[in-house]
């Protein structure tokens, strides 16, 4: 069953070939045997999953099933789940049983989906390798030595290993697309405001956006239908109609104008990856698309800009973790200041502390203009580059990451080199645009992702463009050895 697409699973449930309980049981067994090594889950909610599956089966019998009813899903451990530990990959929240559900969780529950558990991640979504998790690194199913990417590394690895048919992720600077690329799965970061952020533990509020990780664009489209939509609890949620994202998948892309930013193919890009991307572009040309050279002149500054904006917001967002109302509290605080400093000092890992300190510094008196304000100005320039580009092209393509999955431990001592893993993904978050990563080949037996970037609220178009490629190629159907 685990080799089937979500559409096939949905059809199987509908025809009564298997029940959701059987399907869920099958995935739980795969998790049990395969995840010991992968470490892609922080919490497996087997009992709740089986209860939810039985409820889904009853819904189906009552004739109330939708296309996702009874389909298992893994939730990134950044989404608050009532009654279930929501750790955000941190010691700080190791004991945090959320008293409420995130809107994304509510929506998927309402669709009848069955949560298998909570996936591993870089602590507070800060990282590109999943090595910054309190619960240990996740292994890449394609190569045990390699990282799965991050921060949604657990979700990407779980989908790649087929121990979950679908998973949710969040993307602040590439945290869905980069692990999707490194694990060979399909990941979509929608337009900022498309999916509610309520109950999704904030890293950088103006950049964070939830999205699906799946084995294909079609699967992603199905779950996006359930995730997307206006939420009155989120002021930054956009009140705009949600189309059926599966409706346009089969449309022809004849005449599609694909922009190729010079900056995405410049120095720093691995040759092997460049070749894979070129091959993918040829495939698109065969389908009738036109390649257009474009430039995003300020995109080179997206990493420095991001490393002011994101830490500034995170330094403030993470102040609520103070050992008073929830989460980790140090033993025997001497006084109030000691309570704060030790609870936070002991509860947060090194990368989180680094980013809090960078953000604190960037916002502090005397530095605000030089760092924060400057970064906001650059953000506008980076964003304007995309605006101009989309006057000439329909989508933009390039590599998702500058290299394939690197080895565990390879970059963990050097934050700056780690930050450069997101060099092609970050600008999209700064602008708030939708972006995807789809499997496009391999280098050294490690997957390579093709990034597709669209204009605001053109998720349907992106999914259509990705689906057409997946009709023509088989890269997305590759399964890591041992996980067939």
């Amino acid at each position, binding site marked *: 069953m685990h080799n089937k697409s979500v559409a096939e699973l949905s059809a199987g449930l509908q025809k009564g070939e298997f029940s959701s309980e059987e399907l869920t049981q099958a995935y739980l067994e795969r998790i049990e045997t395969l995840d010991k090594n992968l470490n892609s889950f922080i919490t497996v909610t087997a009992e709740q999953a089986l209860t939810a599956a039985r409820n889904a089966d009853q819904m189906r019998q009552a004739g109330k099933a939708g296309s996702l009813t009874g389909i298992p899903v893994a939730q990134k451990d950044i989404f608050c789940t009532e009654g279930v530990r929501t750790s955000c990959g941190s010691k700080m929240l190791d*004991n*945090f049983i*959320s*008293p409420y559900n995130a809107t994304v969780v509510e929506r998927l529950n309402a669709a009848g989906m069955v949560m298998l558990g909570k996936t591993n991640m870089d602590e507070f979504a800060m990282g590109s390798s999943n090595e910054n998790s309190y619960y240990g690194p996740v292994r890449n199913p394609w190569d045990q030595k390699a990282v799965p990417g991050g921060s949604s590394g657990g979700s990407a690895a779980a989908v790649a290993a087929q121990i979950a048919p679908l998973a949710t992720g969040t993307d602040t600077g590439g945290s869905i697309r980069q692990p999707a690329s490194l694990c060979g799965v399909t990941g979509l970061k929608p337009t*900022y*405001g498309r999916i509610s952020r309520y109950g999704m533990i904030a890293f950088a509020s*103006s*950049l964070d956006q939830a999205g699906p990780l799946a084995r294909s664009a079609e699967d992603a489209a199905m779950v996006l239908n359930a995730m997307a939509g206006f939420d*009155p609890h989120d002021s*930054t949620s*956009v*009140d705009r109609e949600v189309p059926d994202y599966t409706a346009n998948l089969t449309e022809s892309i004849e005449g599609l104008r694909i922009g190729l930013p010079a900056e995405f193919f410049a120095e720093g890009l691995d040759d092997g990856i460049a070749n894979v991307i070129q091959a993918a572009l040829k495939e698109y040309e065969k389908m009738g698309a036109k390649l257009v050279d474009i430039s995003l002149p300020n995109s080179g*500054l997206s990493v*420095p*800009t991001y*490393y*002011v904006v994101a830490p500034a917001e995170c*330094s403030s967002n993470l*102040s609520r973790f*103070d*050992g*008073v*109302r*929830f989460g980790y*509290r140090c033993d025997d605080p*001497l*006084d*109030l*200041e000691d*309570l704060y*400093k*030790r609870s*936070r000092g*002991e509860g947060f890992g090194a990368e989180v*502390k*680094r980013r*809090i*300190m*960078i953000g*604190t*510094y*960037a916002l*502090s008196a005397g530095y605000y203009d030089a*760092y924060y*304000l*400057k*970064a*906001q*100005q*650059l*953000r*506008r*320039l980076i*964003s304007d580059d995309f605006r101009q580009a989309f006057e000439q092209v329909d989508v933009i393509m390039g590599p998702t990451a500058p290299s394939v999955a690197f080895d565990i431990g390879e970059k963990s001592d050097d*934050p*700056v080199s780690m*930050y450069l893993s997101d060099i092609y993904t970050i600008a999209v978050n*700064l*602008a*708030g645009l939708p972006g995807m990563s789809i499997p496009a080949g391999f280098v050294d037996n490690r997957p390579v992702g093709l990034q597709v970037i669209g204009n605001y609220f053109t998720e349907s178009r992106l999914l259509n463009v990705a689906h057409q490629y997946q009709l023509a190629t088989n890269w997305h159907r590759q399964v890591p050895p041992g996980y067939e």
Partner: protein
Amino acid sequence: MSLDADEVDKIAHLARLAIDDKDVPEYATNLSNILELVEQMSAVDTTGVEPMAHPLELAQRLREDEVSESNQREHFQECAPKVERGLYLVPKVIE
């Protein structure tokens, strides 16, 4: 921009983070490297550019003034480290 140990201490205090003395030099190095990366920003002249705080050029939505939440104190305090008689307890605050 390079940060020394004193500055790291000052920032850590402002952020209420206890940092072991032995780790301070490493933080100083890493933070300095990050700031060096960040300083590439100065390569572009941004005079007159309107700062962008948000990807969406939208206005704040307003909700009606209605009470929608009921008392869930016991539920919310299940995850609290230390409560007594409905209050969150912290070490004595000196005014």
